[in-house]
């Protein structure tokens, strides 16, 4: 028989202990229910016909043959859904940005705008029949010119996607702090004492690739007017809210279920047309409808990430103090604005232009651009990897220009340690930081001087070893609702949690957040156990079902433990307060004299006179002997709205070797030193770092979406899109420091995205460092062997 591994002994605190995850048994035995595993009585299957054109007029659609195909129950097109389903909304509209929230119909009516745009949906008795019938639908298109590159899309004469968005400009948002123009003018006016470096950086488009494809099961109960929607979502309550806007069903009549979800990385935040089509179909047919994307279908229809063209300049004094940063960014939005899409290159990106550094003068012009491509939205890190890349790349260029060691260059500009609040030029107030601390630890761990020495030796033997060190700081724990409103997010960002004790002393915790691999069924139980002395085995965390759980805004932006965990601990503390009052009554003592320790309430000075939390739970539930005026039950609810964001930080080191004969890169070592505040479960924290670092490595080395000039998705399947594989990777060395967030009840900061925020540029810089002897200063990502080999050949020829 198995028992809970790593269960701490009496002396070990459960908070901070790397216990085994409580969700694992069902996930490891095939007993979990992911959306595509749901099978309902009478369930039928939907398949969606998608546009093969990047841009085209629809002249006509002939569905007659498909309708008569075996097993087919119905075929619907945009003509059927138009006016019945409202457009799919964009929920993040940054203010003062002249944003064009163009209509995004659930199915194209007369125009398709990207390869993958939904054109028709077939419902059949089986999935095979539905897919076969798709081929019988005849769509007559007139192809239109298309554009896929965000910078090209804004050039005059570029094909236009939306009448209401001239030059394909979706928005123009500006971040400004200090006076960047003056700083650059000063640098230009005094070249003796200043340098300016500039660079064009392309953050290629990525496909998130959660291993579970998106899926929906929609079941309409017409008699009650109720919809149940199983959905692969990171935020079922937002789906309920937006589903109600799209379908007109009252929010109170919609139940969204997303308990076991196979990864998201941001790609399951957005509200998608497909789920609404499944809903439309069940409402038409009165039978439950399942739709599950194939992987290739997901590549077209699930959001992509990144896609920035950045023109950046950085100014500094000759002794290496950064004086200004200016950037113009063309951020591809795809054909329509996805749910949170516009917030990513603006709020989550531009506001981080100071990073962990004192950069007094900052200006960013961010253009969101429509292109004939799959919509772009949050992908692990969402805006911050792009900001970190930009900063770390420019600092590396400055260091090279000034011939200062890149580590020293960073040191000269890092913000000094602070414990409670530091204002930066972009207008943010960071919570706490000790950037030097993580940097020192990283350098010490790798023995930086020794590494550089090894590099020098290898170089003298004609071998290419590269080293890079990054320091970063990011914004997460989203966030204060008032700020959310001020920056155009169409919702709140608070969280709620109910802690409920039963008479037997067992506990359910109902949370609004919706973890899907991050392990909060364990960390939240640890929080409650630590706070109330109940063994974790007696605590069950319930999430992901909107009919059962209280409102929450979901799991993204590294906010689940930070914001959701705060709601949990505050509820637990309320339980403790009530427990104290009840214990005082039962022990016939004054409440002030009651102390609490390790699950026991006792009279000060007489620990034998005590009531356990289980005694209290029993009495509160049976309520035979309650103090005057006290309500029965032992349950507490908290709605927690954080006063600030949280700002994890760290220092990462990458060591690579490049084989000049074939351009092959080997990631030799990767060291991540991160500070996310106190760690509730360090094993889970480490796992998050591993996964994040490897996803970031994917962007640097292997991954990238390719569209041809006609908007055809050339990386249309897993055959053509290279994902990180086990044999390509070293063990990631994970270290940490602990700087608590002053404003969070647990001090925690969030760890879900730090890896992917820092690793792409760290690995990129290491490769460029390796190739320095050849004079190579820039390469296009991903750094494929072929690309690197060509650059080496060119450099050697020159």
């Amino acid at each position: 028989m198995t028992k809970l591994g790593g269960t701490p002994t009496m002396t070990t605190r459960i908070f901070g202990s790397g216990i085994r995850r409580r969700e694992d048994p069902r996930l490891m035995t095939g007993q979990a229910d992911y959306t595509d595993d749901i099978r309902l009585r009478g369930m039928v299957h939907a398949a969606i016909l998608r546009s093969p054109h990047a841009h085209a007029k629809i002249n006509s659609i002939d569905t007659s043959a498909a309708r008569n195909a075996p097993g087919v129950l119905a075929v619907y097109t945009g003509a059927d859904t138009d006016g019945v389903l409202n457009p799919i909304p964009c929920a993040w509209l940054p203010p003062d940005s002249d944003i064009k929230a163009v209509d995004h119909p659930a199915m194209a009516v007369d125009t398709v705008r990207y390869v993958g745009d939904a054109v028709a949906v077939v419902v059949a008795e089986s999935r095979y029949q539905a897919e076969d019938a798709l081929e019988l639908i005849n769509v007559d298109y007139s192809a239109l010119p298309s554009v896929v590159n965000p910078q090209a899309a804004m050039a005059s004469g570029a094909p236009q996607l939306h009448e209401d968005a001239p030059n394909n400009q979706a928005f123009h948002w500006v971040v400004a702090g200090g006076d960047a123009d003056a700083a650059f003018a000063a640098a230009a006016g005094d070249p003796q004492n200043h340098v300016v470096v500039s660079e064009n950086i392309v953050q290629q488009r990525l496909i998130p690739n959660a291993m579970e494809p998106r899926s929906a099961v929609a079941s309409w109960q017409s008699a009650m007017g109720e919809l149940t929607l199983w959905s692969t979502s990171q935020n079922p309550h937002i789906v309920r809210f937006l589903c109600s806007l799209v379908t007109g069903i009252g929010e109170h009549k919609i139940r969204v279920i997303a308990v076991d979800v196979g990864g998201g990385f941001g790609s399951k935040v957005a509200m998608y047309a497909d789920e609404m089509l499944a809903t439309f179909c069940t409402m038409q047919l009165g039978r439950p409808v399942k739709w599950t994307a194939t992987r290739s279908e997901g590549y077209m229809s699930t959001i992509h990430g990144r896609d920035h063209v950045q023109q950046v300049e950085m100014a500094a004094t000759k002794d290496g103090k950064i004086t200004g940063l200016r950037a113009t960014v063309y951020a591809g939005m795809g054909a329509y604005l996805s749910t949170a899409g516009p917030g990513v290159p603006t709020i989550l990106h531009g506001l981080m232009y100071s990073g962990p550094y004192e950069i007094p003068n900052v200006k960013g012009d961010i253009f969101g651009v429509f292109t004939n491509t799959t919509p772009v939205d949050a992908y692990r890190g969402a805006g911050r990897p792009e900001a970190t890349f930009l900063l770390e790349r420019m600092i590396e260029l400055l260091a090279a220009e000034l011939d200062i060691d890149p580590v020293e260059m960073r040191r000269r500009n890092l913000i000094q340690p602070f414990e409670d609040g530091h204002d930066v030029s972009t207008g943010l107030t960071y919570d706490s930081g000790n950037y030097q601390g993580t940097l020192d630890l990283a350098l010490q761990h790798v023995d930086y001087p020794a590494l550089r020495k090894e590099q020098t030796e290898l170089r003298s033997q004609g071998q290419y070893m590269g080293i890079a060190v990054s320091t970063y700081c990011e914004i997460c724990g989203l966030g204060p609702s008032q700020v959310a409103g001020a920056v155009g997010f169409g919702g709140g960002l608070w969280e709620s949690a109910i802690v409920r004790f039963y008479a037997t002393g067992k506990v359910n915790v109902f949370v609004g957040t919706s973890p899907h691999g991050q392990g909060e069924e364990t960390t939240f139980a640890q929080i409650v156990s630590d706070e109330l002395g109940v063994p974790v085995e007696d605590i069950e965390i319930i999430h992901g079902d909107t009919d059962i759980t209280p409102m929450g805004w979901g799991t993204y932006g590294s906010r689940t433990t930070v914001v959701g965990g705060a709601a949990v601990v505050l509820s637990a503390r309320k339980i403790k307060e009530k427990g104290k009052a009840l214990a005082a009554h039962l022990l016939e003592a004054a409440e002030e004299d009651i102390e609490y320790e390790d699950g026991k309430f006792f009279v000060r000075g007489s620990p034998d006179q005590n009531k356990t939390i289980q005694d209290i739970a029993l009495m509160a539930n049976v309520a035979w002997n309650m103090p005057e005026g006290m309500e029965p039950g032992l349950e507490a609810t908290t709605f927690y709205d954080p006063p600030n964001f949280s700002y994890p930080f760290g220092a990462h080191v990458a060591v690579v070797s490049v084989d000049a004969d074939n351009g092959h890169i080997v990631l030799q070592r990767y060291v991540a030193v991160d500070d996310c505040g106190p760690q509730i479960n360090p094993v889970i924290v480490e796992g998050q770092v591993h996964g994040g670092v490897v996803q970031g490595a994917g962007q640097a080395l292997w991954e990238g979406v390719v569209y041809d000039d006609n908007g055809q998705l050339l990386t249309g399947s897993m055959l053509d899109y290279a994902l990180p594989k086990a044999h390509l990777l070293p063990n990631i060395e994970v270290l940490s420091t602990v700087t608590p967030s002053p404003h969070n009840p647990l001090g925690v900061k969030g760890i879900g995205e730090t890896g992917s925020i820092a690793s792409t540029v760290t690995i990129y810089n290491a490769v460029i460092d390796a190739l320095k002897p050849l004079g190579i200063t820039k390469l296009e990502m991903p750094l494929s062997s072929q690309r690197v080999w060509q650059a080496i050949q060119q450099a050697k020829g020159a």
Partner: protein
Amino acid sequence: MLLVHFLREELGLTGTKIGCDTSQCGACVVSMNGSTVKSCTCLAVQADGAEIATIEGLANGSELHPMQEAFWDNHGLQCGYCTAGMIMTAVEMLERNPHPSSDEVRAGLEGNLCRCTGYQNIVKSILAAAEKMDGHAHNDETGGHAHHDH
């Protein structure tokens, strides 16, 4: 009909997952007559008469298979979607090579994708299972378990 669809749709054995449509991801790995196959590459009729083992059959009642234990002990899974395929692959890997090196384990996962873990703890889990299963055999030989049951 593909074997994976037969398992999932006809038999209701949904522990085996589908992660791709190009035989890349390994989420669908099952054991057929003792060796692993990607059940999305194989027709159900091809499995006629074969013995198929899926993740549902790995644990012995509530007693987990040592490989499952090792994944649990070493945080070898996050979202769990790749896990059935990983574990089925890993079990066969150790049958062929009971003492793999870390590099051999990584190479053996060539056909399995995981987007959550960065593979590190999967590799660690498999190495730990190798050690444990080996130790187990020793214990059995020396009767090292006897003192537990009285």
